[in-house]
Every structure is written in C-alpha cells, then in structure tokens.
C-alpha cells in the first residue's frame, strides 16, 4: 500500500506502482472474503445488507453507501442518507451501467443489478477523496450482487416464516375445530355406538354430534365442503346449530331439526361459498323407532338381517338452496322399526373415496360388503373398517377426513307398534 511519505519523496516507479496495485487487489480480495463470510451470519435484510455495506464502505474507502430497492433504502455505516442532489445519476435511470458523476465536493458511483427472481437494486457509493475508477466497477457490481443475494435470501426466509406461521395457525385452528367433536359417548340403553373421525392433514370439515332429549337419542353426521380452516370453522358452527336444533326441534323429528339448521346456517354457508351434507337422526329406544332426514350426505347404510340399504338424500346439502322441507315433511323422513341386530352406518366421503397408490378408491361397494358380512359389534367393526381403509390405501396419503359413526341396536324393549298403542312415541 502506498503511504503519504512514499508518494511525497519521489515519483512511483512502475514496479512500485504494480506492487501497490497487487497489494490493493489482495486487500480487496480479502475484503470480499470478509464480505462473503458476513452474509451467512444473518437472515435479517437490514442486518445482512447493512453489514455488507459496512464492509464495502471500508473496502472502497467510501464515505457512504446506499442500496436502493423498489420499496426501501438500506444505508451503510454512516447512517445518513446521501444528498439526493449528488449528481445526475439516479437509481431510476442507471440500471445497467456504472455512471460516475462528480459533484463539487464528492464523487458518486452507482451500479444497478437484478436477479432471476426479478428483484432489482441499485448500489450508490459516495467517496470524497478520489473518483471511482474502472477497476472499481466490477467490485461494486460484486458488492451490489452480494447485497441483492442477501436481500433475496432474507425475503425468501421472511416468506417462509410467514407461510409457516399461517400454516401453524391453520393447523392450530383445525385442531381446535376437531376438538368440537364430542369426546363422550351417550349412554343409551339398548344401543351401542361407535364414532370416530380421523382428520386429514388439511382438515376437511367432517362432523358428528349427539344429544339426548326427552330420552330420545339425536345425532347428526355431516361434512362441510372444502378443506382447511374455512371448513373447520364452519364445522364448529354446524355442530353448535345442531345441538341447538336438537333442543328446540328434536321433539318434532329430524326433518324439523334439519330445517332449523338450514334456516340458521343457509346464509352463512352461502356467503362463504360452502355447503354441508348432513344426515339427522333420532332413535327412540323405547319404541325402537329410527327416524332419518338426509340432506346430501352419503354413504348412509341401514343394515337389517345382514342386508344393507343405502339411505338416499331427499334434498341437496344445506347451503345450496333453501331446503323448504316442512311443507312435505313425510317426503323427507325415512323411518325404521328397528330390531335387535339392526345397524346404522354413516361415514364421510373421505372414508370411501380413499385411493390407493394406483388411484383406485375404496368405494361404497367395499364398505357395503364389509358391513353386510360383519357379525361383530360396532366397537370391533369400526376399528376393523379403519384398518381396511389403511390397508387399501397402502401408504397413499390420506386425502380427506375419515369419519365413521355406527349405531347398533342391541335391545328394543317395546316395538313401535306396541308403543303406538301405549302412546309412548
């Protein structure tokens, strides 16, 4: 490196000049090495670019440096913004070259760079004691690219963190929504109940809930369209509406329960662009009467003497069109005089639509075959059906919630025809 004494005593020889240039180049390489090290230390944009500018300021002997990006300016160690009237050069009109502009008191250089992601930045350097030369051009470009790279990595990191936070919030909300499903099983004489819902990674809005009103067991099983947070949030609302409807309309039967849920939920679902398939049921153990109303839910199977009957929906899901089912109540209710051994199986589409690695669905057929051939109680059949789904999937990802509710009629003390005579129904 040259010193004031050296330069003041005699003219520099070519060898000394060359040696000085080599030493300076080595210093610059070392400074670049230091620059490369500091960029890996921080993922904060201002911190990492600030350190680069600080090192570069020292490298160039600059009085100030700024990195201009579209919506921000990061300043170097001086902490002061450059005078906007530093010369004719500005970030907007100097994207590709290295204009060197002199003002009365200083020289300014700027270099603009961009990367493949479309991020653009302009580095502006300010030096008082000497102008920026051609040799500085590549170094300034290297610094600008380094700062741009650090900025890019920092923003990618910020995006990833933001996505992770959103994802975590969604997962938390979905977990909370799943907790809205009852973890208790009603104690109803003469009935055994199996209920389970395995949420998919992105919760799908499956639901079930129960209540006993005046000794009658009421239940709903449903599926909100869509996945993730909107479906999970809507699912909790449908559960609340169902529990309220059991209390207010349960005595009048499942068609009235369904109609009440529709009247409360239709606008909400419609505004959200969602719908919910829902089967509502009421089982009166005293009479053995099972009453069902089905709004678009499938599959629902009633098994009697080992033969399964598909209980079809009479109306579309709630949220599609206003149901208007009270005008013809009998057309929308299916009623069964159950006997011991009868069974009601309600699952969600995520159960039957589970695909294997070849894209073949489990399907209603396999479910019906399994249910018709079962002689075990629902406490054993339910887990076995889940095992069958898992075996069918063969490791393929669970694409939707898998929900299964089975109601086994164990004992009916009074048949419905007798109950009618005694006025118990």
């Amino acid at each position, binding site marked *: 490196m040259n010193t004031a004494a050296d330069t003041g005593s005699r003219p520099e020889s070519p060898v000394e000049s060359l040696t000085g240039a080599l030493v300076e180049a080595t210093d610059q390489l070392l400074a670049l090495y230091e620059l490369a090290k500091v960029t890996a230390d921080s993922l904060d944009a201002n911190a990492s670019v600030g350190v680069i500018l600080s090192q570069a300021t020292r490298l160039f002997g600059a009085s100030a440096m700024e990195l201009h990006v579209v919506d921000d300016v990061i300043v170097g160690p001086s902490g002061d913004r450059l005078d906007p009237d530093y010369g004719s050069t500005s970030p907007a009109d100097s994207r590709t070259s290295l204009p060197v502009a002199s003002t009365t008191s200083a020289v300014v250089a700027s270099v603009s760079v961009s990367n493949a992601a479309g991020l653009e930045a302009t580095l502006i350097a300010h030096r008082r004691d000497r102008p920026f030369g051609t040799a500085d051009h590549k170094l300034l470009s290297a610094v600008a690219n380094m700062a741009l790279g650090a900025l890019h990595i920092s923003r990618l990191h910020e995006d990833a963190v933001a996505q992770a936070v959103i994802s975590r919030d969604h997962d938390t909300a979905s977990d909370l929504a799943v907790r809205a499903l009852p973890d208790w099983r009603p104690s109803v004489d003469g009935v055994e109940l199996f209920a389970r819902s395995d949420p998919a990674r992105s919760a799908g809005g499956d639901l079930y809930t129960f209540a006993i009103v005046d000794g009658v067991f009421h239940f709903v099983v449903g599926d909100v369209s869509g*996945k993730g947070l909107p479906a999970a949030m809507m699912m909790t609302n449908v559960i609340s509406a169902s529990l309220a409807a059991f209390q207010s309309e349960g005595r009048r039967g499942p068609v009235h329960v369904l109609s009440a849920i529709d009247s409360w939920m239709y606008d909400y679902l419609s505004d959200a662009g969602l719908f919910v398939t829902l089967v509502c049921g009421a089982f009166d153990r005293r009479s053995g009467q099972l009453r069902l109303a089905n709004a678009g*839910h499938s599959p629902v199977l009633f098994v009697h003497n080992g033969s399964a009957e598909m209980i079809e929906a009479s109306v579309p899901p709630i949220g599609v069109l206003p149901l208007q089912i009270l005008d013809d109540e009998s057309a929308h209710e299916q009623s069964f005089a159950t006997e011991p051994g009868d069974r009601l199986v309600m699952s969600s589409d995520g159960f039957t639509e589970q695909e294997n690695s070849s894209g073949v669905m489990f399907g209603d057929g396999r479910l019906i075959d399994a249910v018709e051939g079962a002689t075990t109680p629902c406490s054993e059949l339910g887990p076995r059906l889940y095992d069958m789904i898992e075996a069918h999937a063969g490791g393929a990802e669970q694409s*939707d919630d898998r929900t299964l509710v089975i109601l086994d009629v164990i004992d009916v003390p009074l048949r419905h025809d007798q109950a009618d005579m005694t006025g118990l129904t």
Partner: protein
Amino acid sequence: MQISTHTHPVDGAIELALNGRFDAHEAAIFRDAFHDALDGGSHQVRVNLAGVEFVDSTALAELVRGMKRCRELHGDLTLVSPSDPVRVILELTKLDAAFDIERVAG
C-alpha cells in the same frame, strides 16, 4: 385438470369443457376460467363434465358458487353431460336437483 373454453353455437353461452380430476387442488383453475367467462359478459355458463373422472366436495362447492353467481346475474350455470362418476356423486348428494343438467347424446 385441463379446461378448454368456447362459445356455444346455439345460445352463445360460454362453455367450459373440463378434463381430468376436479378436486380441491384444481378448484382455483376452474374459478379463474369461470370468472374469465363472466368478465367476458356471459352470464350463461355451460360446464361440460363429460371428461371429468372425479369431483370432490370442494369442486362441487365451486360449481354451486358459480351457479349462484350466474343466477344473481339473471343467468345460469348448466352442467353438461356429466360423466358417470360425476353423475353418481350429483345423485347421491341430491345436487342433481339443484343444477340445470343437460345430457347431450354421443
């Protein structure tokens, strides 16, 4: 899923012909194509489902949303020639009662 768009020669409605799986992963593609159709001024939208091999509840919700939007604009969304798997789903969910469905021979 692939979507091709053309104008129906008889009534001038925009017809979106869907091919492949129509599920939660593809819903945004349909929504964009549907909005493009509406932005083009057509409130009569036909959705040809002959080439759709699977629909899930998210896809059905997109169709319902589209149907409601068209009806708000005094138009309609017609389902055209649903494939067997789609037809079964529409019947099981009773959504066939909510949509205008046109079955084209051949």
